[in-house]
């Protein structure tokens, strides 16, 4: 019996442990939506009177958003709730999974999401998959309040238009600038570059002298994640004036300009923060804000992060210039729309009227300013936001102008339904070129061949 006694006392122990565990984990009331403290950072602009009638009281929608935008989307949800009385549940997923989540949700008939965040190069795929509502008519009906012409022209169509119809609302406008550490560049006697060759030389100069102290001329994001690696490649591709397709819409990814651009990228690698193939968002951000890296191509909000005393050692010591240009007849400084997001409505949305209402709210110019002036917010999509005083004070006027300039005339990634597949092939091959297992020419020839196969040409 001693054995049995022991087992029973042990079971008692298990119960006790379970109780302790459950006591540690105080559950939130079921169904409560998490509230992030955003009020502190919010610049209050025209909060509506609380006494106003609330037409959607008691109704609710689910909004699918990516992790990097959780704070912003939750802030919008909160403001929308205050204004309409509706409840917005923000459902967050890692950005790498957002497209598969949306497709699986609609294909399976689950219909959990009403509003869906879209990485814009996936737009064609989502439309083809039947995930998105056609918003053409909605845009037409709400012309006055949405002011389509106020969206930065270079993003307005790529973010929303497939086959002549509009499917989405621009949400987060992203592009790269070339950021530099003013102090480091001065110390090593180099100027902010205007061409990629100058960039390589500047990077080399700093790295050769600073390496022993852990200082590198540049950080290049070469990790094998499409949104990271292709941003880096496309920055150079644009500088050399290459494109994905020729005038007839036929793939032209192995044009001499494209090969030269990839060759330039490969040539830059030895001088960059080691090893570019493992440098993604975090590594590049960390290297720059801690003053170890002279230059980095990065999204425009790096400015705010560099001035955040908690994360940065280079406060007010940085500058930003447009993307360098390449060489050859087509060389120009052309930024690219790297990343960038839009909002759409699910075909299975359970409360479509409220989903439309939410989109209308998010699309308002004043809301665009408001959400772009909180910490952890988005980047503007509207011209009026770039010019709005609260935004300019928030990010500094210089950065606002630089970002606006970069965004206007920026090159958009393809958005056709085959792009996810094509993008993966390109990522694979550019990664091989970076790893040295293929020459740039080979990598792009292989991409071209595969693209022709995918497009059935």
């Amino acid at each position: 019996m001693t054995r049995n006694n022991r087992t029973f006392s042990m079971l008692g122990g298990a119960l006790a442990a379970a109780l302790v565990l459950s006591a540690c984990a105080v559950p939130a009331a079921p169904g409560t939506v998490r509230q992030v403290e955003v009020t502190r950072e919010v610049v209050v602009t025209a909060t509506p009177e609380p006494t106003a009638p609330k037409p959607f009281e008691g109704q609710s929608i689910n909004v699918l958003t990516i992790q990097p935008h959780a704070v912003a989307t939750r802030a919008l949800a909160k403001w929308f709730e205050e204004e309409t009385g509706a409840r917005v549940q923000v459902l967050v997923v890692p950005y790498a999974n957002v497209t598969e989540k949306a497709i699986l949700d609609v294909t399976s008939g689950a219909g959990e999401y009403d509003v869906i965040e879209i990485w814009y190069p996936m737009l064609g795929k989502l439309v083809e998959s039947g995930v998105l509502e056609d918003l053409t008519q909605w845009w037409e009906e709400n012309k006055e309040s949405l002011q389509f012409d106020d969206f930065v022209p270079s993003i307005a169509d790529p973010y929303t238009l497939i086959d002549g119809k509009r499917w989405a609302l621009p949400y987060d406008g992203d592009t790269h600038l070339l950021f530099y550490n003013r102090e480091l560049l001065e110390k090593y006697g180099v100027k902010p570059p205007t061409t990629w060759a100058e960039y390589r030389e500047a990077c080399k100069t700093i790295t050769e002298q600073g390496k022993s102290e852990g200082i590198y001329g540049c950080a290049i994001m070469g990790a094998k994640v499409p949104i990271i690696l292709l941003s880096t490649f496309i920055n150079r591709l644009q500088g050399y004036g290459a494109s994905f397709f020729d005038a007839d819409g036929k793939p032209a990814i192995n044009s001499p300009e494209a090969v030269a651009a990839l060759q330039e990228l490969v040539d830059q690698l030895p001088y960059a923060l080691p090893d570019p193939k493992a440098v993604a968002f975090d590594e590049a951000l960390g290297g720059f804000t801690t003053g170890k890296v002279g230059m980095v191509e990065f999204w425009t909000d790096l400015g705010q992060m560099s001035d955040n005393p908690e994360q940065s050692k280079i406060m007010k010591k940085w500058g930003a210039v447009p993307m360098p240009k390449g060489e050859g007849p087509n060389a120009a400084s052309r930024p690219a729309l790297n990343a960038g997001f839009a909002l759409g409505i699910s075909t299975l949305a359970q409360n479509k009227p409220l989903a439309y209402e939410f989109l209308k709210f998010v699309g308002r110019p004043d809301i665009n300013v408001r959400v772009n002036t909180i910490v952890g917010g988005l980047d503007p999509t509207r011209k009026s936001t770039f010019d709005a005083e609260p935004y300019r004070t928030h990010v500094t006027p210089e950065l606002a102008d630089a970002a606006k300039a970069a965004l206007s005339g920026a090159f958009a990634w393809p958005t056709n339904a085959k792009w996810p597949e094509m993008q993966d092939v390109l990522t694979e091959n550019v990664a091989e070129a970076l790893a040295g297992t293929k020459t740039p020419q080979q990598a792009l020839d292989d991409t071209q061949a595969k693209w022709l196969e995918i497009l059935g040409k």
Partner: protein
Amino acid sequence: MIGPAVLTLIVFSLYPLVYSIALSATDSQLARPFREFIAFKNYTDAARDALFGNSLVLTFIYAFGVTAIETVIGFGLALLLNRESGPTRFARTLGLLPFITPPVAIAAIWRLIYDPSSGMLNHYLVRAGILEQNVAFLGVPGLAMASVMLVDIWQWTPFVFLLSLAVLAGLPHEPYEAAAVDGANGWQQFIHITLPLCLPGVLIIAILRLIGAMKVFDLVFMLTFGGPGSSTQVASFYIYKTAFQQFKTGYASAMTIIVIVILSVLVTLLTALYRRVQAKYGP
């Protein structure tokens, strides 16, 4: 009594398997399952797909590599610590920790350990003079694979060690007593008694680890995303990418079936090997 188990198996293993086999014969996309019947085209495509071939080779290198290292170290440790003493109890308790830690957390912390500019490994290796300058452990093709494998070894060697201790504890006494009478020394006892008697048990542990390692996904997903180049793109990650980045679920299903077949053959072979070893050395 086996009703619930059989029902569970039919619903959750047979159904998905049949579904996947059916899917693998079509040109399906995530949003358009069973769209167009193409018979074996996905399989012939897979046979020609150099990246898939490469991913299988990498999977084998990874799985056999970590299994061999974990088994040798884990069993070696167990031999060394095979007595009820302070060090053993201590090691046994600690050994539990790595494999009960969530892989998500493990990957995050190892990413920080490997970080090329502020990582712990570089910090101390450079300081100790072993490295001249910082190294990007996850950025150099061969090294990245080794770095991912090291995390696996960290996570699972203690597991092999614990199981090996149990194998040793189950050994019969008589052969040792007989050997002692014959005057065999410790080394002879180890070669002629301990090793053969342990072989079946250790083989089972190795098979367990091998299957686990063949399925590796989380570590690659969170540490390297298959890069640099395609140097860490193991089969499960390549299949994931095909299904959820390219949305080609038909093709991904075909590759999954191929992997399942390969694994089944491997497991059958190893089980046969186990039976033979068991018949020869087992109790």
